[in-house]
């Protein structure tokens, strides 16, 4: 009796939450996939017809926005790696007792709503705002100069909003490095740059990978930054999906676009994992 109880216990504990995830995460993915192959409209209803044409239409109609989103996501991710690494490095190796304080400061933006933070940047960067107005007055910028509405503004916003997601995993990987390994490299007369290139960076790669996973996918599918800081020439695929789903109620199209986007993003991430897979990281460390 007691043994039965004990083997049942984990299942009973998992059951309510597991059911919730099944019902509201797994099942929706299935309905989304099913809807992406349906035809019809909001008034007459949708019927499943195995309509792969939805995917072809989605890709041909929104090719530009799809490619743009991937390019923005890629630029953002690369910039994030370059910008975050020194921060994570400094906190991990020189933070000392203050490490938690520095991490807390990096996470500070999360205490303000994502939308509100982005709008705050819009206020700072606006054409005659607190940043550009004085520069224009001083004659340092031409009166027609603007940042808002350009791809730069959108990528700037993406980098800003996702930076903590890159710093944190790189920090965790660096923090785990045994100082004796670095010491050994130095004892063997490796120059500082060589120590970094051959020892520290390869050991930090799993953290970089985790950071890419946490930033590339959400950045490419984001629609808040482009909506607030961009213009019609920076429309990203997230905005298209949102408009198709909420304004046009074209659920099959929105579903097909989302599914295609997810497939592309996951393929990209897994390709990256293959190239920089754990084995390669080990090899790089051993070399």
């Amino acid at each position: 009796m007691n043994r039965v109880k004990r083997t049942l216990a984990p299942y009973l504990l998992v059951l309510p939450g597991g059911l919730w995830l099944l019902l509201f995460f797994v099942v929706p993915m299935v309905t989304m996939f099913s809807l992406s192959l349906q035809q019809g409209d909001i008034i007459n209803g949708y019927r499943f017809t195995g309509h792969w044409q939805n995917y072809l239409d989605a890709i041909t109609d929104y090719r530009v926005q799809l490619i743009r989103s991937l390019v923005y996501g890629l630029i953002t991710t690369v910039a994030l790696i370059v910008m975050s690494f020194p921060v994570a490095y400094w906190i991990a190796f020189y933070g000392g007792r203050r490490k938690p304080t520095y991490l807390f400061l990096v996470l500070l933006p999360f205490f303000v709503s994502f939308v509100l933070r982005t709008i705050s940047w819009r206020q700072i960067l606006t054409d005659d705002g607190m940043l550009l107005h004085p520069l224009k007055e001083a004659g340092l910028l031409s009166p027609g100069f603007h940042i808002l509405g350009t791809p730069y503004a959108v990528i700037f916003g993406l980098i800003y909003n996702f930076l903590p997601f890159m710093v944190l995993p790189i920090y965790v990987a660096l923090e785990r490095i045994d100082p004796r390994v670095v010491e050994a490299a130095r004892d063997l007369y490796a120059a500082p740059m060589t120590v970094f290139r051959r020892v520290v960076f390869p050991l930090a790669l799993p953290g970089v990978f985790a950071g890419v996973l946490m930033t590339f996918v959400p950045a490419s599918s984001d629609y808040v930054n482009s909506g607030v800081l961009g213009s019609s020439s920076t429309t990203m695929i997230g905005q298209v999906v949102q408009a198709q789903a909420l304004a046009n109620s074209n659920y099959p199209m929105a579903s097909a676009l989302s599914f295609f986007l997810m497939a592309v993003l996951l393929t990209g991430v897994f390709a990256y994992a293959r190239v920089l897979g754990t084995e390669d990281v080990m090899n790089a460390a051993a070399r």
Partner: protein
Amino acid sequence: MTTTMPAPATRARRFRLTGERALFTYTWLVIAWLVAPILIMIAFGFNNPKGRYNQTWQGFTVKWYAKLFEIGDLTSALVISLVIAVISSLLAGALGTGIGYALGRYRFRGAEGVNLIMFATMSSPELIMGISLLTLFVSAGVGLGAVTITIAHVMFSISFVSTVVRARVITLDRSIEEAAADLGAGPWTTFWKVTFPIILPAVFSGVMLAFALSIDDFVVTNFTAGTTVTFPLWIWGATRVGLPPQVNVMGTLIFAAGVLIAVITNLRSRSKARRG
């Protein structure tokens, strides 16, 4: 920690010292950049704009703190957000603790699958989760509103709660539970009198995390809200016409409360750790 490793040569040492200073400066510049828009948000809650747009600095005032609840639909949006955050974080706390405890404590068939689904919910883009929930609710003929928002928030919070709880349960000293059992406590009593108080701080941080995720969420909410308006949705809708200073004040208060709670819990856990 700063200089534990002896440098082999003075040139290399100088290089590292200036490198260290450069890294230090750079890190603080990045932190300043991260904090800048927050400071602007706080500052413009004290601005006294003449017209409709709260864009440029026009004088100091604290009147928006007094007129905080003067915009009716903004206030009700904030209230809806708070109610949804409380309910969804408590629900996610209960469901997530169950999963986290089971994963940390037992080895069972299907644990891998549960882990996989948790990882998937934490790493899937919000856009995909939002649109898929929308298709589910539309296909099932469920009307969108506060209930569907809450369902969605519980869904994406569960995995975060269970991750935090699992981490605590793994480090749990089993001998304490065994001692309770030896003294004649049944499994139920042991759990509530011994185990639960130990994992309670982790459950609490999980619930706080879920609360923060819920009150801040825009994307998933956008797809599951229908005509219901939460605080982030109200801000989004008002962006084009210009945000009233009350939004800055509410943002400031939420920020202050969040930072305060984080600092207090951090200090308490640190002093507890020092006491041993």
